């Protein structure tokens, strides 16, 4: 289903039939020649095409559109945010409560 806002996903849930998604993860690999990052959120890892290079192990929030290339899903980033000091553990607890409250 197409949305006009970013849907929060864990990496293992990302498919390429969604218009825009977001996730938070750590940079585990960088290809400086293609500006391609591999970002891992603990549930999976995914390629992210970026417009600049980030640091290894940097925590990022990626908002982008997934597509398939060579059998792999790549996220074409629309926005990449530096989430270095983000308390991911607390955020996940809040997300869990949100699911209970809003659904």
């Amino acid at each position, binding site marked *: 289903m*197409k949305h006009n*806002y*970013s849907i929060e996903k864990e990496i293992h849930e990302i498919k390429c039939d969604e218009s825009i998604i977001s996730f938070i993860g750590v940079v585990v690999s960088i290809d400086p020649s293609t500006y391609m990052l591999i970002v891992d959120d603990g549930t999976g890892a995914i390629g992210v095409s970026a417009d600049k290079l980030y640091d290894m192990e940097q925590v990022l929030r990626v908002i982008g559109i997934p597509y398939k290339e060579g059998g792999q899903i790549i996220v074409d980033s629309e*926005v*990449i*945010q530096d989430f270095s*000091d983000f308390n991911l553990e607390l955020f996940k607890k809040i997300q869990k409560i949100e699911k209970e*409250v809003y659904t």
Partner: protein
Amino acid sequence: MKKRMPSSRLPLAEIHKGYFVKPEGDFATNYVITQEGLKVYRLKGVATIMAEPRLSEDGTFGSVLLDDGTQSIISLAFRENTKLLLSIKKGDLVQFIAKLSEWQGKKQLNLEALSLVPPNMMTLHRAESILTTIRQRKQFKIAQKIYDEEKNVRKAMDRAKKEGINPDLIDAIEEINYLIEYAEENRIFDSDTNLESKIIEVIEKLDEGDGVVLDLILYELKDEYLADDVDNAIRELLSKGELYEPRVNYFKRTI
């Protein structure tokens, strides 16, 4: 002196699900009444700037698209508030306070304050939003029970007051019932507002990356709408920032 209405923290999805009310009277503040009876006169939120802010040439008007992960919304700035848009760019995480407005059936924000915030503010905002929702839901449930039992608004308000429930909630229930009825009538009698959403649907369906040429949009809608109406609606969508024109006569959905 007119009382300043405070802001409420809520996700954008709750605003979109609510009903917009423009009260009678020149100086009355617009509000959105949520499905749980909360009247939101000012919204406070944390969201990502999804497209570069736009400013009119004379600097008296600007707009920006905000996305909080539950919904997105066009946010406008007028006159001196346009300076809020000068210090932000696409990708920034911001906290905003804004009044609510509606244009052609779509809710919008009129920005009053906007500032960059660190990522952990997103968590705080969402935690506080949950708290607002839970508190409101609890009160609303009791108010609904009183309303159903009393059948008379005045009596229900008195009883709510005695039981420590905000009597305005009884009023809000009455208002929601009226708005639901009114919305149903509008759905039946007013199909014109569908044109913009149909244009967006066509663009989303046909866009292969470079946008969709105007002729193709007109062709797709030719059985239902006049070309002039479609053209005008596209101009409106452009001015609202919901579409952009990557090249002449090609239109693309703003993300």
